[in-house]
């Protein structure tokens, strides 16, 4: 890739690579042209070159002190490869167990990242919702109450788990060989699963208390809006941060609470709402790498 020299713009971003000699020839020529006309960038380059010299000096020092690799390491590595081949492992096809292990490791890491209070507070909120639901006489109202609570905890828990302030970066980015989008997706999956289980448990209790509706009908009162609100919260969290996400989702939630029958009619599990949730989720995942 070649890039024209732009005398108005400093070459700061490329000088480290230029000093390391790790830059494509066309780009190197553009940087060299800029350097001829820019004393500030020449001074900065001198700093990078000194840094490079220090790094190489340290490496030479370490190389002298370091014994050469032990040939037994190669023998042991080959013995391990032979053992794996004997067990049916083939290059390029990671064993299913290894993939499953990686997935579990990824999910376990997400549990550590999600703020600790999210799990008990979500469960407590659903418990409180069930107490309210038990006090109302009609199954529809009880289900709506429970659904509103599930939607609120979905939005808020995503808000505080997916923003830049929840990111233990670069620790997590370092500890797992997975791209940041997959990390976000797995975290959202974990939160959605947990909240869905809570919501289904609550819905089952509402059905058993009132007996008039099916589990499917009661769950339909909240499942679609819950996914859409959670996905919206994810978008707001990755773009503007946790507080904006929590405020935005709670504002929308309040619109549903006080918005009357028109808003209530839109607050359903149907194709457009689920489609909305899917689009928002894709936006959040697409935006995620910019967080780092």
């Amino acid at each position: 890739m070649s890039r024209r020299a732009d005398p108005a713009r400093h070459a700061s971003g490329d000088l480290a690579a230029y000093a390391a000699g790790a830059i494509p020839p066309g780009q190197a020529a553009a940087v060299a042209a800029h350097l001829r006309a820019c004393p500030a960038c020449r001074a900065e380059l001198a700093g990078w070159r000194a840094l490079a010299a220090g790094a190489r000096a340290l490496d030479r020092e370490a190389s002298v002190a370091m014994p050469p690799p032990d040939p037994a390491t190669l023998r042991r590595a080959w013995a391990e490869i032979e053992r794996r081949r004997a067990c049916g492992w083939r290059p390029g096809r990671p064993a299913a167990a290894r993939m499953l292990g990686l997935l579990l490791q990824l999910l376990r890491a997400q549990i550590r990242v999600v703020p600790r209070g999210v799990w008990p507070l979500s469960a407590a909120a659903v418990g409180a919702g069930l107490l309210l639901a038990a006090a109302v006489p009609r199954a529809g109202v009880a289900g709506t109450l429970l659904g509103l609570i599930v939607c609120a905890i979905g939005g808020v828990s995503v808000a505080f788990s997916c923003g830049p302030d929840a990111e233990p970066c670069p620790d997590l980015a370092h500890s797992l060989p997975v791209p940041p989008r997959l990390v976000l997706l797995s975290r959202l999956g974990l939160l959605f699963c947990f909240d869905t289980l809570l919501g289904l448990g609550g819905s089952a209790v509402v059905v058993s208390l009132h007996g008039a509706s099916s589990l499917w009908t009661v769950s339909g009162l909240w499942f679609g809006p819950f996914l859409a609100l959670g996905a919206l919260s994810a978008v707001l969290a990755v773009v503007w941060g946790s507080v904006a996400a929590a405020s935005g989702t709670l504002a929308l939630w309040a619109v549903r609470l006080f918005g009357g029958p028109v808003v209530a009619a839109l607050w359903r599990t149907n194709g457009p709402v689920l489609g909305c949730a899917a689009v928002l989720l894709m936006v959040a995942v697409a935006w995620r790498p910019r967080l780092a």
Partner: protein
Amino acid sequence: MSDAVLRGLAGVDGGAVDADIALARRLAAGDRAAMEEVYARHARALLGYIRHRTSDPGLAEEVLQETLVAAWQGAARFGGRSSLRTWLIGIARRQALQAVRRRRLPLADGAGPEGRATPDTEPESVMLAAADREELAAAMRGLSPLHREVIVLTFVYGLSYPELTRCLGVPLGTVKSRLSNAKRAMRAALAGRGGERG
């Protein structure tokens, strides 16, 4: 985007990459001579890199062994988007992190939040340029592992920006800001050493 285009973007030499791809194919096919060639050409550099991440020589050899096994396991997927050495360093990095975590040793620290790369200030560059190599090497030893790693990968192993983004698993902006922050940390370390001497 095709591998050839990506190679062009990374400034990778096509002939050398083709040789690397051929070596990786032989390795994937279970050719022991290919593994010996990989070992002869890259083991020392890999061990040097691993030793930047752990000071335990036994653990470093163990990580090297796991890197060679993982390289065989993943060799079929090597597409030449970077040099074979860069690809192996990426594997060694992951294996080192896993080994350190298994042994519950401290992970590379975060070294503070990583903001956008900011324009360099001249005194910083002047201070670095004025320091002698011993001072610079001593200041390097005092850097956080995260900062030392990006400097070592850039200036010792010569990884390009696209290779650094793949190896470190972070976007280009983070690579650049990490380098800038490392440079700033070097300046602070040099200033501290100057203060100690004074």
